[in-house]
């Protein structure tokens, strides 16, 4: 089941720095982007957890992959 992120929050995030405006439904795309990122993050941390042969994703798993992930999703 897919959830929905609060669009207002996303808009605020996009408008972070300046008073730039956010187009129609652009935040939906941002939601999509967010989902993709979280998906990748979860995937990577899951792999990392499997390396340690634990079925549960722990904090250190996520931390280990965080930096690499942030670097990869630059653009």
């Amino acid at each position, binding site marked *: 089941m*897919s*959830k*929905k*992120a*609060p669009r207002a*929050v996303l808009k605020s*995030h*996009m*408008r*972070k*720095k*300046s008073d*730039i*405006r*956010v*187009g*129609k*439904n*652009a935040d*939906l*795309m*941002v*939601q*999509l*982007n*967010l*989902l*993709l*990122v*979280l*998906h990748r*993050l*979860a*995937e990577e*941390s*899951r792999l990392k*957890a*499997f390396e340690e*042969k*634990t*079925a*549960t*994703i*722990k*904090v250190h*798993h*996520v*931390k280990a992959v*965080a930096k690499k*992930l*942030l670097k*990869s*999703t*630059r*653009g």
Partner: protein
Amino acid sequence: MDSVEEDVSARVLLRNVLHSEPARSPVTRSVARNATVSLVRRSSRVRNTPGNESPQVALRKKLKQKLHESATQSPLPPSKRPRSQGRAVKTPAVASSSLYDEDITPRGLLRGIIQTEAEASLLLSGQPAVPEANQQIVETSLHSNRQSEGPSGLELPDLVTEPLSTVIRGMSRRRPPPTFNVSAFERQLDQQTGEEENDVTQENTEETVEQDLSAGCKSVLSLTLKTPFMNVQSERVGLRRKAATRRQPSVDAFDEAVQKRFERHCNQDYTVVQDGKTLGDSDWQKFTLGLSNVTMPDLTTDIVMSNTELYLQPTVSASVLKDDDDGPPEVGRCEDGKAYETNRMGGEHQEEQVVDDFQDKLNEHLSKVCETEPEPFQEMEDPETVSQIQEEKEGLDVIPSSQENEPVSLSPEELPFAPTQAMTEPVPQIQEHEGKVSDIQESEVEKSEMRESEEELPSQVLERITRRAYHSEGGAVVAGITARGRSTKSLGAEQYPTELQSFTNASAAEELPHLHEEPNISPASASTSPTMKPYLSEMHQTSLAEVQVDEVEDHTEGNTSKPFEMHQTSLAEVQDDEVKGVTQGDNSMSEDENIVTSPGHHSPTPDLPADEEEQQEEDDEEDAHSEGSEELSMQTPAFIRQRKEVPTPGTLRTPTVLKVLNTGPAPKVVKPRPRQKTRPASHVLPKSYVMSVFKHFAKTKVASDVYPVINEILQKYFDRLADDLEAYSAHAKRKTIEIEDVELLMRRQGFVTDSAPVNVLIEKFLPLEYRKLLIPVATSGNKVIPNQRR
């Protein structure tokens, strides 16, 4: 000197060689120079100094002694080497010079020394021994010219040991010279091989040992020394390897191959298998020979079929052959079978006439049906034979005739034809001439029964196997036939064998009533008859006959309508079902008791079994399909499951104590604290949403305490995101972030690729409401949702 040297350790010998060598070959000098810097220094020094024999001899002796000591002792630390090397240079030079005159060529000596030294040093201290030996050799060679030994004699022992190692090491470092040395060395080695007996033997062993050691660490001299030996050994090694590798698999592979063929034959031809086993695993040819001898030599399939067919359908084949000739010759077997049948047919003149007419009809259907299925042929045979029986006489005459026919050797082709015929017959019969069909069916039943009775277990097995094979091969063969078969199976698969048996056993009188009763059932049974053959043979006829009578009555009443219906509906599924039905039938009919009971089951619900079987068949097919599809779909999840399974034990292993602990303190802590709904500072997104998404994507358990980390990550991410989007829109000279900007961002990030366009991702991830907003959907009235600006 010689005697002393011989007694002395290898090092001494090495030294001598080294001394002698340089006199012979300049290479040694160069090698020595390149080998070690320290050596170079000393070598130059040593060379310059003139050699004094007397002092040299003395030095040599001392060196020898010290070599002995050094050999036993561990090599001195490298720090001392520089000193010792210089001095050692002197001594080796002396020794080598003295030795030079001796018969032992320096190279040979060096080799031996190196080897011996290497061994000794190995014992003491791994590799350095080898380089040491090399170094010594180098030194000796280098210093052969230099003969100044000076008062460093005392230090000789140290020098001997240390310089050797250092020299050797140094030499090992240098690669280029070895090539040169090798060539020259090899020549000398060849000469020297015979010279030093003791050393040679040792050398060989040593060389081998040294060679075994990593060549990299060995000095140039060692390499050069060993090269000739190495070649030999390498050759041997290579030969050995090859030999070993060749021999082993060949034997095993051969056995495996033999057994595989064996199995193949076993599956195909029961009788043949037995023969094959007796023949043993020796030759494939033997198998083939055995097969050919045992069965018909024409075709392998025919051979296979022949065994079963011979027993099963003597009459059917004969009758069928006549008419089958006209039938479709699709399969070579069929054609052959038909031809064979025709041959037989000649013998059966009586039946021919009657059968011909009937067979013509059958042939027509056969042509339609028997496209590629041997089974249809078999079935066809059955109906034909049955029809023959019918037309000629009601029970007795037909039976005996059929029996007569049976003895006629059944070709494997006949067997395949028989079922096909049977299959085709029921279909056309039912469709066209019910009356005739009934008769035909009866005759078929009779014939099938007869056939079955005559069947033998092996033949049955073969038949089943062949049939199954045919099923698998044929696929859509005669839908009608298969349907018939299936329907018959459903109805009479179990019933039929009993009926058939009754026919075979019972007299004409019994059979006649059965026949009449069975006409309805017969179409089904007829088709199944071929399949049931194996079953029938197993079953006892007498007992079954009695039961059959009753059953037939019931079946005929109820089944008449249904079988037909079922035939029509179940056309598609027949084939698979037939196989299953056959198998099922076999299982059920294997015993008399089963037979008896089966009829009982059938009688009460003649219709039900048909329907059920159909459904079952359908279900089976569906299940098979679903299973197949499930399997495919399961693959990826299976992997994940495996992965999950792996870690699960870990989770399980997490001691329950910990779990208790985790749960324990929590409630205690929470209660006293006043519950404050304080929103944690700078929460990028609601925890519930983030964690739910993360857990969904993770597919495995996620510790709940990862949220803060994720939060931070998302924070950074959003910052970057905003900057990028701003930059993109600014680049587009806009002041609003649009969807295009985000799209561009995603593409740059690598989420969106040519193979994963945006819309696909949208469909994949976003909920329906959002999707509608993002993806334009065309609706009636020339409307596009959402409204597109034009």
